[in-house]
């Protein structure tokens, strides 16, 4: 057992309101620079939808992640020799149009236009060429229209859904969508690291942050293709690859990452996980439907004395072990089993986790119930909302956001993992609704709780951490002992406001 520590983020999708505040926080902090205009290290997608860059989940085209065949785990992108032969041209690389042509508006026109009959307008101009352009796509181009057949039909996660269910998703007045905020997953078995011919990308043993060494990167751009989440970006001005740095300068000073800190819906949690580095390969080499289990298997119990002893033997200090014990991520992921990695079938062992959304679950069911009562259209149901909860609980397979769809996103299609999580969340909702609105809990609600596999205490803990957590409960940050870190060699004030990368020479390209 080789115990290591990992900083992980958790996204409670049931709370995400799709406001993009996180994306803006990250953009302002890290990517508001020449060559990085098109990058959104944090982006928010409407789902079903094609995402950003468009269709990133289509690995037949982009060749991201690992393939497990005949007992071998190989990069989908290339073997090592193939990689060298494809340096001159990398066929799987997305082009700028797969993201979008970044644009701004020529605001000066508003002041300098000659007097005339019409109100002056600020025309859009490309931030690459400076030429006037008509934007035809963007990082959130299909925002809130996710259900519309125009965009949503291209979502690869819709595979395996009944045609009937697919049609329902985009029904007039019944459109359903959810939000999916994404950052780099700081994977345990990262495709980006493995694909870099130079070896410029590495994972930090202390906290699992995956970083590109900008001094070593030579623009072979294999990482961009090999990351199945398309979370490495190529800066055309500097000729270097860049990615989310998990705001390590903030983590090292005891602050949560900017995207998490700024989150309006407070959907993000940050905490430490202990994992067994020795068992990474075996966790990535199991059939698709067992991947979540095998990954959770190498995440260790921070209360187990054996684990603690092994952690100390590795030089992990008490502060980190304590943080791991208080970690909200550990609770959601391992104790309550409510959260899953995004697309485990890519086999990079993503270390950011998602609680699947519950909210839009009801309406298909409403329709089904209406039909059974001989009613049609948008007639409101006359069963009380509280009873409706029970109906939903009993028939999750007919939920508005198809369970199969959620399973395709979070469990490699394994519905038997998603359903218990949804049931637990629903059971807690029913319980707390009765408690707070009806002044008492019914037998039926308690039976549901038991059926979902929760005790009253657990339900209360889930409820508290979901709805009422304080900042300190959401972000349980370990002491980084920055005074001991390599970074103290550098003057933080000198670096502040540069780029986060500390250019020796500012990039000249694109001036």
């Amino acid at each position: 057992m080789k115990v290591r520590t990992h900083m992980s983020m958790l996204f409670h999708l049931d709370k995400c309101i799709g406001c993009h505040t996180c994306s803006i926080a990250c953009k302002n902090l890290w990517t508001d620079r020449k060559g990085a205009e098109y990058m959104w290290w944090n982006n928010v997608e409407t789902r079903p939808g094609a995402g950003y860059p468009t269709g990133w989940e289509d690995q037949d085209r982009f060749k991201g992640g690992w393939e497990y065949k005949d007992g071998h785990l190989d990069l989908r992108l290339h073997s090592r020799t193939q990689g060298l032969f494809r340096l001159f041209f990398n066929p799987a690389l997305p082009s700028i149009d797969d993201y979008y042509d970044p644009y701004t508006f020529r605001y000066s026109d508003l002041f300098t236009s000659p007097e005339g009959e019409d109100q002056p307008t600020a025309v859009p101009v490309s931030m690459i060429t400076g030429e006037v352009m008509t934007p035809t796509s963007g990082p959130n181009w299909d925002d809130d229209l996710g259900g519309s057949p125009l965009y949503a039909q291209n979502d690869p996660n819709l595979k395996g859904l009944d045609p009937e269910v697919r049609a329902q998703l985009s029904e007039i007045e019944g459109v359903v969508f959810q939000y999916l905020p994404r950052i780099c997953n700081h994977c345990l078995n990262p495709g980006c690291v493995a694909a870099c011919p130079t070896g410029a990308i590495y994972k930090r043993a202390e906290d699992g942050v995956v970083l590109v060494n900008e001094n070593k990167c030579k623009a072979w751009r294999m990482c961009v293709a090999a990351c199945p989440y398309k979370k490495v970006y190529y800066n055309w001005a500097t000729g270097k690859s860049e990615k989310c740095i998990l705001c390590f300068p903030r983590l090292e000073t005891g602050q949560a990452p900017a995207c998490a800190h700024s989150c309006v819906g407070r959907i993000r949690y940050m905490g430490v996980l202990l994992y067994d580095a020795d068992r990474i390969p075996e966790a990535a080499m199991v059939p698709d439907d067992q991947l979540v289990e095998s990954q959770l298997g190498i995440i260790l119990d921070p209360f187990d004395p054996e684990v603690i002893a092994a952690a100390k033997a590795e030089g992990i200090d008490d502060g980190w072990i304590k943080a791991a014990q208080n970690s909200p991520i550990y609770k959601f992921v391992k104790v309550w089993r409510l959260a899953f990695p995004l697309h485990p079938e890519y086999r990079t062992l993503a270390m950011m986790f998602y609680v699947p959304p519950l909210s839009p679950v009801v309406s298909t069911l409403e329709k089904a119930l209406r039909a059974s009562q001989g009613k049609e259209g948008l007639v409101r149901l006359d069963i009380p909302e509280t009873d409706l909860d029970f109906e939903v609980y009993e028939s999750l397979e007919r939920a508005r956001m198809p369970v199969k769809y959620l399973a395709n996103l979070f469990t490699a299609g394994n519905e038997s993992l998603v359903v218990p999580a949804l049931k637990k969340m629903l059971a807690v909702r029913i319980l707390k609704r009765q408690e707070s609105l009806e002044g008492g809990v019914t037998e039926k609600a308690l039976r549901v709780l038991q059926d979902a596999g929760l005790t009253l205490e657990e339900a209360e803990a889930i409820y508290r951490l979901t709805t009422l957590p304080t900042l300190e409960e959401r972000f349980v940050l370990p002491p980084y002992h920055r005074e001991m870190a390599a970074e103290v060699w550098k003057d933080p004030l000198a670096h502040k406001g540069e780029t986060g990368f500390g250019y020796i020479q500012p990039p000249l390209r694109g001036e």
Partner: protein
Amino acid sequence: MNWNTLLFGVFPYIALTLAVVVTAYRMAYRPFSVSAQSSQLLEQKRLFYGSIAMHWGLVLVLLGHLLALLIPKGLLLWNAVPLRLYLLEITGLGLGLWALVGTWVLLTRRLSVARVRAASTSMDYLVLVVILVSALSGVLTALLYRFGSYWFPAVMTPYLWSIFTLQPRPELIADLPFWTQLHVFNFWVFLAVFPFSRLVHIITVPLGYVLRPWQIVIWVRKLAR
């Protein structure tokens, strides 16, 4: 000092010094500036035709030159059979033409695709022009003065060795035809431009990839101690 001495006896040393000293400085002290500066993100199709053609053409032809420099006797032995001489010459010419076309595609691409132009420096254009001149003068030499692989060991190999051994004999070049002289001179220009341009990427070919393990994990703290 006449032109011949200046261009083929003195300038090579200026070029070589720049190539070695500035490249070493840049690799050691300006690593952030060392990059192939890919423009594939901005344009793909023309890069596909241009880059693959130029690179494979140039890399193989350069390796051919290197062989002729290192084992001239072997080359002469090989050429003793006419069929083998023709085979070598036709392959060389084909690769040279391929590189020429590829470079032309890349140059026109850089000039005409607005996005690529926006991401270009004057050095990027200069480098392509130098390579274009190289490929063009090389192909013309091959076509006009048969057979290069036959006389290279007799003229070029001694000339190049004379430079590398610090006993320059520029007079060896003096009587060569214009295109061939241009080809040689342009190579020294190439070396002089090398350290100041994206060309440094040539010596960063990541062959170590074949041997290294897939994953890289670094203890930042241990580095600090």
